[in-house]
């Protein structure tokens, strides 16, 4: 599977991969994210609570942060050549502090007439488990 450097609606094809990115989130990033939202859910900052009351093996990464990384997978690839029109995703499994995560993307279909591509995106962990699968639609400009 080839990986593209920048999108060009006239040469894109189904199956092509977007650049992958690795994430090693730490407690500082998790704190800053929840502070930016004003999210006080204890599973994100109170490890004894997360372990003893909820049965998690560690502090839980915020689900929407994984969602944002799906966005970044598409938006960074697009650069100034297009825009994200729509995205749909779900948080299927939890991620924890200490995990090594990565975002992936793959072109599903190209609609040259409308100048749009549909893209399969996902966040996976170090065991290749899919934590957050989704699909996105991006609109591309012809330069």
């Amino acid at each position, binding site marked *: 599977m080839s990986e593209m450097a920048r999108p060009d609606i006239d040469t894109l094809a189904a199956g092509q991969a977007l650049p992958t990115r690795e994430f090693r989130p730490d407690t500082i990033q998790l704190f800053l994210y929840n502070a930016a939202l004003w999210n006080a859910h*204890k599973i994100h900052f109170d490890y004894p609570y997360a372990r003893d009351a909820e049965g998690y093996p560690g502090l839980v990464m915020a689900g929407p942060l994984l969602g944002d990384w799906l*966005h970044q997978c598409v938006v960074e690839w697009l*650069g100034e050549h297009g825009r994200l029109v729509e995205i749909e995703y779900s948080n299927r499994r939890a991620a924890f502090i200490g995990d090594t995560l990565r975002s992936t993307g793959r072109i599903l279909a190209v609609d040259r007439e409308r100048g749009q591509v549909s893209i399969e995106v996902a966040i996976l962990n170090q065991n290749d488990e899919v934590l957050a699968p989704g699909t996105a639609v991006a609109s591309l400009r012809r330069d």
Partner: protein
Amino acid sequence: MGSLLTPELLANIGRKAPPQLELVTRKDIRKYAIATGQRLRKYLDGDEAPPMFYLALFWPVPEPEQRSPDGVAIDPLLPEFPLKRAMAGGLKIAYHRTIRPGDVLVANRTLTNIWQKDGSSGPLIFYEIVMSVENGRGEPVVTETTTRILR
């Protein structure tokens, strides 16, 4: 399996939360951009908001009595459901316009559906909330459809 969805519960479909109006600041965009690990300069400088910034902008700011013991904000839009344990849900987000500092945005949230499915381990209740974000000219900015599952 009988229906857990009483007429009283289903009568909540169509319920709306009060409109929420928020001002977008460069500092809030920058905080969000750094917290989410953005790498594009326009986001880090706060010239433009990353797409999902709207989520932080409209995240509830509950007073202490509006929080559950686990720290989660209690959503006044939701009725009391007979199932309590929340499972993973999904989001569908349509982006209509870019958010920039100085924008004044309004979000309207509606409980648009409640339905039940019977899974192998018992009944599941689904509900759907649509949040429509508009700018000061009444133009659509973001439309978010959230589906949550209770078991």
